[in-house]
């Protein structure tokens, strides 16, 4: 199938999934509040009163210190809901077969679905990040370099989560135990993404900006790898879903 129809089909599926979200507002009204609740729970689990010394005479709360990891943990957990939703709308009505019968390029279906998840996760992730700064009193000394690194990290990590997550959701599509199987399959796979994103965001917030970019590179490679695997394998994954 030609490249234009791949992207054209991807755009169709992408638009379809976003229109479903616009009318149902599941991510906005359910996944986003869930993500914000996780942030508040982190405050309960890790007391905001415990402080660690920084520099000569300053100190920072442990909660603020671990903010980079917490942001991506909240995004990771929310992604499980968003991915469940992405394939829930197909499986419940048997529309995965309909997508195939409509003659859409399987690679296009993959890109479309992954991109829709990406857009939704980026929206949730941006609000979670802002919420974390609001709630955790990080006291970051913002520069353009730090902001660009953080935004790029968010984009690269979310792309990795959306692409790998979409593949594993397709793997469990049509199963009654999909809701419990997908987290078990996808979380170990996404462990490196959490690691890389946590390190890059830590560099963006508190460390040297230059230390963060190699991790962003690794996140981008991870995302590209999974986008490639998805385009190539979605045909056989959908065949028997």
């Amino acid at each position, binding site marked *: 199938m030609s490249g234009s129809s791949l992207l054209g089909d991807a755009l169709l599926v992408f638009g379809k999934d976003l229109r479903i979200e616009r009318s149902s507002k599941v991510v906005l009204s359910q996944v986003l509040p869930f993500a914000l609740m996780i942030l508040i729970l982190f405050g309960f689990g890790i007391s905001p009163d415990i402080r660690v010394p920084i520099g000569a005479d300053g100190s920072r709360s442990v909660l603020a210190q671990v903010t980079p990891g917490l942001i991506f943990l909240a995004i990771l957990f929310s992604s499980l809901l968003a991915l469940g939703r992405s394939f829930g709308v197909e499986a419940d009505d048997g529309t995965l077969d309909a997508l195939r019968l409509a003659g859409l390029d399987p690679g296009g279906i993959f890109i479309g679905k992954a991109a829709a998840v990406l857009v939704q996760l980026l929206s949730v992730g941006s609000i979670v990040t802002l919420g974390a700064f609001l709630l955790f009193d990080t006291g970051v000394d913002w520069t353009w370099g730090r902001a660009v690194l953080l935004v790029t990290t968010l984009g690269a990590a979310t792309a990795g989560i959306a692409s790998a997550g979409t593949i594993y959701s397709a793997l469990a599509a049509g199963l009654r135990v999909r809701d419990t199987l997908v987290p*078990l*399959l996808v979380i*170990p*796979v996404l462990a490196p993404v959490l*690691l890389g994103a946590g*390190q890059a965001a830590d560099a963006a917030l508190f460390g040297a900006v230059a230390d963060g970019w190699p991790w962003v590179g690794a996140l981008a490679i*991870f995302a590209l790898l999974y986008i490639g695997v998805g385009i190539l394998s979605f045909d056989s994954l959908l065949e028997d879903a």
Partner: protein
Amino acid sequence: MSSTGTTTNGSRAFAGPTASKATRVVGLMALAGIALLLPLALLWSPPEIDQADAVRLFYVHVPSATVALYLAFGVTCLGSLIYLRNQSVFWDLMAHASAEIGVVFCGFVLITGMLWGRPTWGVYWEWDPRITSTAITLILYLGYLALRRMDLDPTVRSKRAAFLGIISFCNLFIIKYSVEWWRGLHQGQTIGIDTQLDGLMLFTFAWGMVTFVLIFAWLLMHRFRLGWLELQATTTSLDDAIAARRAESPQLTGEGL
């Protein structure tokens, strides 16, 4: 279920539920290996200078890690690749059997690693890159086994499992290197693993490797045969049920079928 030449030959070779000649020979060799490994590791080999007697755990820890992470999961990956190419039932069962044994060995690696960590580092869990990535790998393959247990059409399940078996093996390396990179920033070289082994210690180590490969081979053959028998039970019981159902209704046994 699509089948190949391997399948039809296999049905004759693996008809009986008892062990074959091959499993008996390999089993005896593995037993002999263990019989020599125990005194070698526990009595005859000397304690190490830094780790003292804790080093003895290495003679089972490192071989089981090598067998689980590379041999067992490698066989799963290979079996999955071959299955996707030619739908060989033999390799599908092989991939499943190997993953299950790999998970058992992986758990053993974690337990022996923690037991070794307590006297050496003072804690059971040190966030050492190797043991951390092994823990994630264990969960990764528990997911593979979970997919294998799904109530699906056998061909669909085998196909999805084969895809997962290949991609999981690639993930094993992604996880391994990312965790090593992460920990490398914080603590440098892993403590205590770069031990100098010589003489009897080196021999014990090599003997442990051979023994664990034999144990793996023995378990693999048995687990493969079990999988084969399970498959036979499912397919033949279904055939029997269909035959019985047809026999109930005389008009269905006519020429039309």
